[in-house]
């Protein structure tokens, strides 16, 4: 494949997680010693975040009956559908981001979990707004997908991890000053069982849906609230 071959392309490839390990290491080293480049990257990240927010409407609105009717997807037009007409899926199903490469995910997760005890995993979940990518040790990337509050008051985040099309998803909740993994998707669970990673009690490997049920997840928090939590060290203000 063709690697990035100019300044702009390298920045874009960095932001989009498209640098290979060597390129990523070189780019990070450059970021360390070139404040102008760091500022540029930060500005570009801000632009991306703004774009995501500017087009967040359809995703924030979710799906209701009126929308389905408007889109020609009303249940009664498709009677063979297995779901009941009023069975509006809970938000985590509506919001689920289909991720390809479940098999490759297992590979990616090996690296994640060996570094998970380190500060990288916690810092990424502490400080990264949903939809943005944080680089983890080992060239892996973590992208928080959404933030919600569990029934027990903890703040939790669904995240994807991996690189390129190797990805998996999980849920972690902030307990004390660190993030405890509460659930991982199927391949990831298999993998974690064979490692030293301690999953929360009750983790049943039935995918994220079960964890959302168990955690008594509230609706996802909006971008504003999330950003307040990020800047406020995840202290509940209300």
């Amino acid at each position: 494949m063709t690697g990035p071959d100019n300044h702009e392309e390298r920045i874009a490839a960095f932001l989009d997680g498209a640098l290979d390990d060597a390129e990523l290491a070189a780019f990070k080293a450059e970021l360390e010693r070139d404040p102008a480049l760091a500022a540029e990257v930060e500005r570009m990240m801000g632009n991306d975040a703004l774009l995501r927010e500017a087009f967040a409407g359809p995703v924030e609105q979710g799906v209701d009956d009126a929308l389905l009717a408007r889109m020609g997807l009303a249940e009664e037009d498709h009677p063979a559908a297995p779901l009941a007409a009023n069975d509006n899926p809970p938000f985590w199903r509506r919001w689920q981001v289909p991720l390809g490469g479940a098999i490759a995910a297992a590979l990616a997760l090996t690296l994640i979990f060996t570094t998970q005890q380190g500060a990288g995993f916690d810092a990424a979940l502490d400080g990264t707004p949903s939809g943005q990518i944080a680089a983890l040790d080992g060239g892996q990337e973590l992208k928080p997908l959404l933030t919600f509050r569990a029934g027990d008051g903890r703040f939790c985040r669904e995240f994807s991890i991996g690189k390129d099309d190797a990805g998996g998803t999980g849920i972690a909740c902030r307990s004390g000053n660190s993030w405890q993994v509460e659930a991982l998707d199927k391949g990831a669970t298999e993998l974690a069982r064979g490692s030293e990673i301690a999953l929360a009690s009750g983790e049943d490997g039935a995918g994220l849906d079960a964890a959302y049920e168990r955690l008594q997840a509230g609706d996802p928090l909006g971008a504003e609230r999330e950003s307040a939590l990020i800047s406020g060290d995840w202290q509940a203000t209300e």
Partner: protein
Amino acid sequence: MEQGSVPETADLRDQIVAILPRLRRFCMALARGQDAGDDLCQAAIERALSRSDQFKTGTRLDSWMYRIAQNIHIDQGRRKQTRGTEIDVDDMAGALSGDDGLQIVEGRSELSRAQEGMAALPEEQRVLMALVVLDGMSYKEAAETLDIPMGTVMSRISRARRAIDKHLNRETLQ
């Protein structure tokens, strides 16, 4: 998506519902506005359901739907051009914020400026920004979705980002 036989229309319908928010966002970016995007989205869904036999299970439904929407969008653009009513990007940008017909005034929100920035991008850059930055696809997935080389994805994305940056940070950058 599971490997298997051709899906029943009802199954396909459920799968489309699952990706509907993302499909709407993609269409909104493509058609440069939420109302126009929803029209496009609805047309894409209608076409997809009528051609469900063409969807290969085991492949990505989102990519398939995005391609359908893009094809319809391109067809619509051509039809408008032959009728001599080519869309003016600046007019469209005004419609994005939802206050159609109003002059864009100073102090407009950052969010509408971001939407305008996207609207002003050339079509082939905008679609990639929608796939990669909004939808979170990797370059490889975007390349496969649009059937273009990875290198093309990379160069278009970088040019689009530069243009967006200029649009959003004109003052800072001078």
